[in-house]
């Protein structure tokens, strides 16, 4: 099973890289862009794990290693059964 995890800054944390990308897009004339938040993507290949077990495992891995819960949040989805 493959899962995709998206780690990004919490809404309460300023994301200067996202702001810079937004400014660049505005410079290019993409005025419809209201905001940009930048994040990291992880694709994890799991072996011998049920969907239920992944539901416990992935948040655990994300909280412990992939994201720093003080500044970051994460979402995840199964991309391949």
């Amino acid at each position: 099973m493959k899962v995709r995890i998206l780690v990004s800054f919490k809404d309460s944390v300023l994301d200067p890289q996202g702001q810079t990308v937004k400014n660049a897009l505005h410079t290019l004339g993409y005025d419809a862009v209201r905001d940009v938040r930048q994040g990291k993507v992880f694709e994890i290949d799991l072996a011998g794990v049920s969907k239920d077990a992944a539901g416990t495992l992935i948040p655990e891995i994300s909280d412990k290693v992939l994201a720093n819960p003080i500044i970051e949040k994460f979402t995840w989805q199964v991309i391949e059964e």
Partner: protein
Amino acid sequence: MKFGVVTFPGSNCDFDTYYALRDVMGQPTVALWHKDHSLQGVDCVVLPGGFSYGDYLRSGAIARFAPLMREVGEFAAKGGLVVGICNGFQVLLELGLLPGAMLRNKRLKFLCQFVTVRCESERTRFTSRSRPGQVLRIPIAHFDGNYFAPPATLAEIEANGQVLFRYTDAEGRPTEEANVNGSLHGIAGLTNRQGNVMGMMPHPERAVDRLLGSVDGRIIFESMIGRP
């Protein structure tokens, strides 16, 4: 006082720190290896600056899983002195030995320059040789030094007097320009609640000889050593 300086893959201030402690401060100092499981009876563990594990994932995020860090955690819990400089500070934050986290510098630039920081207390193990409110001139060299903590944590740190150094101008005034990386409350260094674990972004080991442009870093080492 016996010091141990830990080397991780990617540490690059380990030898400077070792030199400053052994040759400049004249203290018995040993090099500690991240894969070992012994602190060799040191009185103080120093996590030096650099780019441990290439700053992969987040600065300091991988180094916290190094084998030796279990011993460092136990040592800190028993009241042993632990100091993290720059990347070492980031490791201590990731380990949870110090509160908060680091964000990228406010203007997204790697900053390599002298800064001035104000000692917030002279009643700590790390600043006892400083004068009240003394301003130290010490260099920084980092990309991720923009200190962040949630409001409740920040209030707690301040209430407990855990802030050790704050970015200020040369007169000790906390200005926007002096806070070069955008740290909340201008925090450049702090301790844990017990006062035995300390992290700071400026590099005191780079300010121990007049040839280097400043000797202010010595005040921190002298405070720890307790030499008059």
